[in-house]
């Protein structure tokens, strides 16, 4: 059965492109542009990997990371961000972030990171 990945980003294009790329790698991808809906989805369904933006309206990427850690400690989280401050980075590391990508995201690197996180490499 294909591994499930959840992608959360305010930008629809980020979601669409990530879905396209990851589906090409035979993963099952679900995307959300509304982080609140994404949080609710996480609460009902476990994912193998979560890829989320940091700064978002409603719920931030950090809150998603915390909630995933709380509910599914084995699920890894990869974070994307356009403006990574040192404080945010440190906080993410303390919350055991798996990987961190500044925008613009290099898709090949993201793909590699996803595969590595899911043990497919």
């Amino acid at each position, binding site marked *: 059965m294909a591994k499930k990945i959840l992608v959360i980003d*305010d*930008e629809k*294009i*980020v979601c669409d*492109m*990530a879905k*396209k*790329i990851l589906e*090409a790698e035979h993963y099952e991808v679900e995307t959300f542009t509304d982080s609140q809906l994404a949080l609710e989805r996480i609460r009902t369904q476990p994912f193998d990997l979560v890829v989320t933006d940091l*700064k978002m*309206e409603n719920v931030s990427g950090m809150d998603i990371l915390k909630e995933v850690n709380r509910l599914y400690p084995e699920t890894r989280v990869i974070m994307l961000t*356009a*403006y990574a401050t040192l404080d945010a980075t440190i906080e993410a590391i303390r919350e055991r972030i798996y990987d961190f990508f500044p*925008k*613009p*995201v*290099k*898709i*090949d690197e993201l793909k590699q990171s996803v595969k590595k996180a899911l043990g497919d490499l």
Partner: protein
Amino acid sequence: MLRSAITIRKRIIIAAVIQAIVICLICGFGYVSFNAILTKLQAIEIIDDVNIAFLEMRKAEKNFFLYRDLSSLEELVQIGKKQYAVLQHSRSYLVTRLHGISHEEYSNWLGNLSHYLDLVQQAVQKKEVPPRSEAEIRKLGHDLTAQSATLLVRERKTVSDIVSYSLIMLLASLGIIFVIQVVLWQYFFRFIIQEITIMGKMIKMVSEGRFHEVAVRTIAPTNEIQVAVKAITDMARELEKREQELVQSGKLASLGVLISGVAHELGNPLNNVSMIAQTYLSLYDLLGDEEKKNYMEDVFTQSERIKKIVENLLDFSRQKKQELHDIQIGDLVQRSLALVGNQLKISKVKHTVFIADHLPPVSVDVSQIQQVLVNLFINAIQAMEGGGELFIDASYDQEHDMVVLAVRDTGTGIKKEILPNIFDPFFTTKSTKGTGLGLSVSYGIIRQHNGEISVESEEGQGTTFIIKIPAKGKDKGE
């Protein structure tokens, strides 16, 4: 205009000359009148004396006819001769002074007196009066006194006429002076007052910061006040230029804050373009033609988004001449929010906009008001470190016909003791981060729009800025 072609100096000289001429004429007339009265009175005095003497002669005459006392007649002759000498001596004087008597009449009168005295003298010499002479003497005596009395009455009436006439002329002179004053006021001095009033209004406008309205007036000065008025318009023009420079400095200060937000805002569409391109390249062989087309359309949409962000910022930063446009305040709020949108997001500030229905438009310089709003939003965001809420509320003040915009934050608030200073130029609480231009420039801009800006704040609770701008009513439409 003729009235403004005369300098005030000339006006005052002309007015003084006219007044001097009128006063001289009135005085001259008064002098002539009084002189006439005086000479008439002197003449009348002589006639009066003569008249009294004649009455005495008649009394002596009566005494003689009653008591036949010759000494009475001698007395009569004595008085008569004296009066005859007086009248003879004063002949030319009296005839020229007394208009009521001609030379012939006077001669006739003197002749009568002479004849009368002759008859009496004959009687004295003969020591008797023949009955024929008696009647003649009586008649002549009667005629003499009657003539002098008539003359007296006539001349007294003439004097009284002159006095009445002078009185009327005096009143008329007052009237003429009044009319001349009114004319001088109308054609000379009213304009001075009017021009000073206009100058006063202009100075008031300058003091209220409405430089533009004053600066656009063109004046070719033809008198002293207009020279001063021109100096005021020149000053307003200079102040307007300075203020524009200040406005631009304030804008640049805001821009410094905006630019980091905008740089971040550009991050998203740039990332999108980058991701589309990478996906496109990576999955090139797998993508259908339709999908490839969609990808390129997405690239185009994202590049438009970048263009819009950059344009918005450029538009804001550009220095422009003040231009008034009719606009809904809601549009202004949205445009300004677009500039600080990313700042709000980064700073975790939620914003709520409430625009009342059916607001009248305002006639404003869009760029300047946007500058004011951006400045208020940035201040609010900076006052809410760690997040907060920004409320923007637009309503209509029917009583004053103004559109009212309230910008409220839930930030740290402003200390009571510095509240009166916040609109002062170069006053800042942000040390090196602020220039102290933002609010002072905003104040200037709003005043230039005939509006008001005020602040209410409570420490720890937040701050509300209230902007009032005159509504552009239907009746004021151009």
